[in-house]
């Protein structure tokens, strides 16, 4: 069953908290991974791999560049989940 937008945000918040130590409630759709959430390019790969597992999507490396904000990632996952 597909996750809702809220569930995807909550899931990404868990992942970002685990990887970057940012409190879950600070992980909101308007936040930039790099500028606001202390997720550098290496850690972004970790976020992507964890998100792939959690939401059953594939996010090719070429698409990762387009995921600047949490909202970008939520939109991508929402439209690609099976």
């Amino acid at each position, binding site marked *: 069953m597909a996750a809702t937008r809220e569930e995807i945000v909550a899931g990404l918040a868990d992942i970002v908290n685990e*990887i*970057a*130590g940012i409190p879950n409630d600070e992980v909101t759709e308007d936040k930039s991974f790099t500028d606001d959430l*202390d997720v550098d390019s*290496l*850690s972004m*790969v*970790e976020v992507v*791999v964890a998100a*792939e597992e959690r939401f059953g999507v594939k996010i090719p490396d070429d698409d990762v560049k387009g995921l600047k904000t949490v909202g970008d990632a939520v939109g991508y996952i929402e439209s690609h989940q099976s």
Partner: protein
Amino acid sequence: MIPVNATNRTVVVTGVGATTPLGGDSASTWEGLLAGRSGVSNITEDWAADLPVRFAASAAVDPADVLPRPQARRLDRTAQFALLAAREAWADAGFTARAGEDSSADPTRVGAVIASGIGGVTTLLEQYDILKQHGPRRVSPHTVPMLMPNSPSANVSLEFGAQAGVHTPVSACASGAEAVGYAGEMIRTGRADVVVAGGTEGCIHPLPIAAFANMMAMSKDNDDPRRASRPYDTGRNGFVLGEGAGVVVLESAEHAARRGARVYCEMLGQGLSSDAHHIAQPEPTGRGIAAAMRNLLDGTDLKPEQLTHLNAHATSTPQGDIAEIKALRHVLGEDLDHVAISATKSMTGHLLGGAGGVETVATVLALHHRTAPPTINVSELDPEVDADVVRDGPRTLPSGTIAAINNSFGFGGHNVVLALRTV
């Protein structure tokens, strides 16, 4: 600005830091050394059940419990230890900010030289397990920056903003000492004013233990682990694996004086040589060690009559402990008689690439407090040890100007002798 007399500047020690099997900082480590406490214990985890050696000198404080989790998970254990020891040393030297953030140090004149014997081997092995179990996509993108042997050095440079050069000498169990020696040369020759230097190791894991045990290098005294590391004892039968880091802040004497820093002692320099004898066996006559000692005496103004203390390499192996003593006697002659010898690996175990760092810290503190720590577990001194081994308790060192040396040797035939002297 490069100082005028840039080729032979005086180098001093202004900070110490450590995290070892005896304690999470240099003060608790020193206290443990003076108390003659063993840092060795049984490994109770399931992974050790089938190993021929089921004990080690594990760190007293787990660095992953001290560092924030996001930072800990992207640093191999070797880098975690190094970072904690380096932070302590930096603060102990009186620095309160990253280089360049205040006027105490120019970042382009600050260096970092932190060594490890093996590097991030536990990261490598853990990630290989993940690769096999879950496939390539799950291998951490942090794997390479975590496992590379220069990772501790690089992370320390990031921490303090060191831009004068970051280096990582690799010479097995001499690595930490080689790092301190190299750092001293950076300052002596004018490349840097302040260098954070030392050694680290974190490889208590079944593969290194099995490998060292199969080399017949480790004690297998599973029934009495606290007595297993017994340098100079007739019954010694191999080293005990330890983990942790020791770091010092070296500084040019002028730079230290300019900022009014407390000076522990002078770092006189190093003597180096190589055995070219065997990839893992010590050269039994101590020829290479003697050459390193002579190079030290020739290259520095260390006077043998000032020598009062030696932190020996002495890992508790049958051959190595004796080769070192033979070399010392050969070079120092009767001057060895007034040298109080401490084999601190009897308490800390052998930290491999970390040993030279931790033992430099111990030697600095021995001069500073004028006290030589004991060598524990010597119930019957090997009659071939024709020297004054401190046993039974700490020994007070003489007043006046006194010097000490710290020996480190490594698989591959590396010999590093460091000399320190009170100021």
